[in-house]
């Protein structure tokens, strides 16, 4: 005959589960509290990560080892200009395999219906492909060779008044034609990226033919990256030379920390954590107080304090597991819904792990008041 589950679990687990399940109303309140705390933390942290990825998306999707930027540049979306001669100076540095120009400049997009939007013009070298659009779902990157050709993201097509490939618009009063769509290339500035060849982008934005924004450096195989970077910095003088990963982090830091946008999201996530601690704390404490005579009996029977603590902590853990599961289900729905919007909620496996850990900590912290209460329990109270 199969043993009942109660025979296979420890006494503390059994007591913890029964204490919760025999007071269903309170258990449901606990779970709802944990669930919404997880939802709030998950969405806010997911937004934070989504924004972080968005702010550095352009850097992350190039294969450059080093980025040369105008001095004082803090993020990839806003920068001054570099002369093309800098490219030749960079090419002369030992260890450098190639240097490509990448242009970034705000521009005005006039929609077919006459309205105007701000866009971020991205001009890249079609031959090397450094800085080219990714996740192309319609059209071909090669079509950008045409003089007026641009590629935009489907997420912003409505905003830019574009309904189909081949549609013509104006960028800074120059005629432009949409030849391709990407999927999921978001911008934090809400000025959508518009991809064109470097030459076309210069024309659209009134850059001189010898001007660009960034120089993307590929190193020769086996080159000492730090050494080449230092040599470039010394040779080029008034520019900044970044490792790609550092530049990506700088962009994230600028938009999320310097502007305060990330703090607001973190604060909301923290609020979720606090709300969760309070709800779990209150409901667990109420359950504990109801069962004080039982804890006193355990103590009289000789149970050490740690045995009683385990019961409380397991109640917290059970609440965490159920609340987390429900909360993550809702988070998954939000993540799925955000896939088609300009605001991405990212939820990689690592963040799921962090959320699970936060939920466990939240419930354990909520259990502290109850633990404190039963630690002081007087076993002689069983005789009263």
């Amino acid at each position, binding site marked *: 005959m199969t043993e009942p589950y*109660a025979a296979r679990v420890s*006494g503390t687990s059994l007591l913890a589960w029964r204490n919760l399940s025999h007071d269903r109303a309170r258990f449901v309140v606990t779970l709802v509290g944990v669930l919404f705390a997880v939802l709030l933390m998950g969405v806010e942290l997911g937004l934070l990560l989504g924004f972080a990825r968005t702010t550095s998306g352009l850097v992350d999707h190039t294969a450059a080892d080093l980025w040369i930027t105008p001095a004082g540049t803090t993020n990839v979306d806003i920068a001054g200009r570099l002369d093309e001669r800098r490219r030749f100076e960079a090419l002369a540095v030992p260890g450098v395999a190639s240097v490509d120009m990448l242009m970034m400049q705000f521009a005005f997009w006039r929609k077919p219906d006459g309205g105007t939007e701000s866009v971020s013009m991205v001009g890249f070298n079609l031959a090397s492909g450094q800085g080219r659009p990714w996740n192309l779902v319609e059209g071909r990157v090669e079509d950008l060779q045409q003089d007026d050709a641009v590629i935009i993201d489907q997420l912003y097509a409505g905003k830019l008044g574009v309904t189909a490939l081949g549609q013509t618009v104006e960028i800074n009063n120059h005629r432009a034609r949409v030849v391709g769509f990407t999927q999921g290339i978001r911008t934090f500035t809400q000025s959508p990226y518009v991809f064109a060849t470097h030459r076309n982008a210069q024309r659209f934005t009134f850059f001189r033919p010898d001007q660009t924004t960034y120089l993307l450096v590929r190193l020769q195989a086996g080159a000492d990256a730090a050494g080449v970077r230092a040599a470039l910095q010394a040779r080029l003088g008034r520019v900044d030379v970044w490792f790609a990963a550092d530049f990506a982090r700088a962009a994230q830091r600028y938009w999320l920390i310097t502007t305060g946008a990330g703090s607001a999201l973190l604060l909301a996530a923290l609020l979720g954590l606090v709300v969760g601690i309070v709800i779990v704390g209150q409901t667990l404490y109420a359950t504990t107080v109801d069962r004080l005579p039982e804890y006193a009996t*355990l103590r009289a*029977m*000789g149970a050490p304090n740690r045995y009683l603590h385990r019961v409380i902590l397991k109640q917290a853990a059970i609440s965490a597991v159920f609340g987390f599961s429900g909360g993550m289900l809702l988070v998954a729905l939000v993540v799925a819904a955000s896939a088609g919007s300009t605001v991405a909620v990212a939820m990689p496996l690592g963040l799921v792990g962090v959320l699970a850990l936060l939920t466990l900590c939240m419930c354990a912290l909520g259990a502290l008041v109850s633990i404190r209460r039963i630690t002081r329990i007087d*076993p*002689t109270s069983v*005789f009263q």
Partner: protein
Amino acid sequence: MSAVLALEQIGVVYGQGATAFTALQDISLEIEAGEMTLLLGPSGSGKTSLLQIMGCLLRPTRGRVHLFGNPLASGLAVEAMAALRLAHVGFVFQHYNLFPTLKAWENVAIALDIKAVPRSSQRQLALALLERLGLGDRAEHYPSELSGGQKQRVAIARALAGKPRILLADEPTAALDGKTGQSVAATLHGLARDEGVAVVVVSHDPRVEPFGDRVLHLEDGRLVGDRRPQRSSV
């Protein structure tokens, strides 16, 4: 017979200064294995305090407690006292103090779990104890589904689960009807006689008295009587 528990000039005072209340004074006695000792006395005479001293639940203000011939340190830590209870003492309470969310066998198994008895054998041991106390068919019932007598038997089974050398019962028959009360008293007496457990029962119940091998009388915190009634059988 040998003394499992010896009290030496025990005194207990609650509170301090003007509000101090003396619950026990100058109590010296020995509790023998294999005997059922009754602790009688009016309300407020100190019976419960004495039971708590015997059960390592309360530290005496004065005097010494010897367990199996070893004196207990006066400043014994709370956790050390709990360890002593776990190792040697079983309790049976007036209101059973069963865990309402656990079935009868689970209530017994909890005592085994606290003693770190392997999980794989807890259920079998608990069922065997319930069977021994005539509750084999009630193992899967919750306390709310049991009669008072059945609950008290589950409580006795739970107290016995840790194989205690000392079993302390506080008014174990007070909430039971006459026949059931007698039956529970007989069970406790059987444990002392057949298994050598030192059983101490605090009671007001005259139905229990015939089962006592020894009767101690307390009044105003003092031991005023200690006798061994003559009886043919119980």
